[in-house]
């Protein structure tokens, strides 16, 4: 089963790189949904051979991160009428390079951290992968201008954290698990509304143009 999980981690890394090069929001939403589905499956595939499967975690992850949130994002995208990120702060080919560098960097730094004793068998590979996903998410928030793409970046960031929780820790405090779910649900809910509000108010959702509040140049 470990090979299965390795494959999932590989797909996770691929999805990060794909996120960096895709300009269409629909692609980005699909990538996030794919990650959510993987996060839903992994608690099960990880637990095979170890006994108890966290069914609740699996169902919540699968339905929330894999289905509900992407659907909400898709609806918001349709409502706002934004299809693609036209002028990213950092271009697509450069983004791909940066994400690649981030992946290599996360493999590099996690090579210097010796694995904790209670970690799962997969932890050696899961630690760098989750670092990479977290950093890609943060990078997406920085490198893209559209409010929706930033939300997608934030979701990827969250997915990385969840991946760490799911794949590295063998057993974890439930409260952390619950916290993530509450967080994502409410967060994107509110963000979705505010995206909608922003678009209604100013007929665009370019967060970059939300720039009236700043220190004046002197």
């Amino acid at each position, binding site marked *: 089963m470990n*090979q299965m999980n*390795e*494959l999932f*981690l*590989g797909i996770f*890394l*691929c999805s990060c*790189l*794909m996120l960096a*090069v*895709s300009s269409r929001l629909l*692609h980005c939403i699909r990538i996030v949904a794919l990650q959510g589905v993987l996060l839903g499956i992994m608690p099960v595939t990880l637990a095979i051979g170890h006994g108890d499967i966290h069914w609740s975690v699996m169902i919540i992850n699968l339905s929330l991160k894999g289905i509900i949130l992407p659907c909400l994002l898709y609806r918001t995208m349709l409502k706002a009428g934004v299809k693609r990120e036209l002028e990213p702060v950092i271009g697509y080919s450069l983004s*791909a390079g940066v994400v*690649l560098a981030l*992946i*290599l960097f996360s*493999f*590099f730094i996690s*090579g210097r951290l010796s694995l904790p004793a209670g970690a799962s068998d997969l932890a050696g*590979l899961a630690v*760098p992968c989750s670092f990479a996903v977290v950093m890609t998410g943060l990078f997406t928030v920085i490198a893209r201008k559209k409010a929706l793409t930033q939300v997608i970046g934030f979701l990827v960031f969250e997915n990385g954290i969840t991946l760490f929780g799911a794949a590295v820790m063998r057993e974890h405090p439930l409260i952390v698990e619950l916290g993530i779910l509450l967080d994502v649900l409410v967060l994107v809910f509110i963000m979705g509304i505010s995206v909608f509000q922003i678009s209604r108010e100013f007929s665009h959702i370019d967060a970059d143009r939300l720039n009236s509040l700043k220190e004046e140049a002197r």
Partner: protein
Amino acid sequence: MNNSLPVFAVNFIAALVLAPLLPGIINKVKAFFAGRKGPRLFQLYSDLGKLLKKECVISSTSGGILRIAPAIQLTLTVLAALLLPMGFKNSPLMFPGDVLLFFYLLGTCRFFSVLAALDTGSSFEGMGAAREAFFSALAEAAVFAVLAFLVLFSHSWTLSGMLTGIGMDSWISFTPVLLVSLAMLLVMLAENCRVPFDDPETHLELTMIHEAMILDYSGADLGAILYTSSLKLWIFGSFIVSMLIPGNILSGWQETALSIGGVFASAVLVGIVESSMARYRFLKVPPLLISALVLAIVAMIFQLFFNGGIR
């Protein structure tokens, strides 16, 4: 190892003889999914036989390249096939770095087809040539990422060593191999101008790529071109098969059967892909080729990790 040369020879000859079967298989699979009867399995053989009897008509505006291009392409492709391990046996011509020669032979082959298309002076063929050159340039990046992965994996610089070196132990952690095979499948579809990159069936000039380039050929020249493209399909199929299936687990002749069967299976796979999806718009093709690159790169990172290279 003493019987490796005969096995290779048999496989090589089988490739030359059986290659025209592949388009037949693909068409049969497509016909099966469409609920039609479809052309005969051996249709390409009959076509080739008919074309060889006909005379070649060469456009009067063309220079010499159009005339010699089919022969050059055929020769280069056969040479490339000679470098590839067949039936899981090393090629007799192998030397360190022959992968580069292998891919550059195929590249030169493409170069001549593009040049010949430009030589006709037809605007359609020029358009097709431009698209062909663009897509293959993108595919090249993926190809080299795959090559880098193979070198890392097998620690070998020969094509034969790379492909036969992926033994059973690679399946203990199959993720990198699987990712790379996916990348290679995408490259195969792109290089052979199959759906979703190009539709070999279409004859609407505006959407054609490869077919647009061979509009001006006729007779034996056209036959050579058709045969070359089927041989190329065989080469890529064989590449993927020897990458995916670990060698040295069966006796020599069983391996031969396995490898030929594998190539046919890859043709069936291509047929299934073609029946399940439509050709992509041109704008969507570069992202697809970039995903092939991405797959290969991630495979490479995983391999480095397993080798202990980045820890």
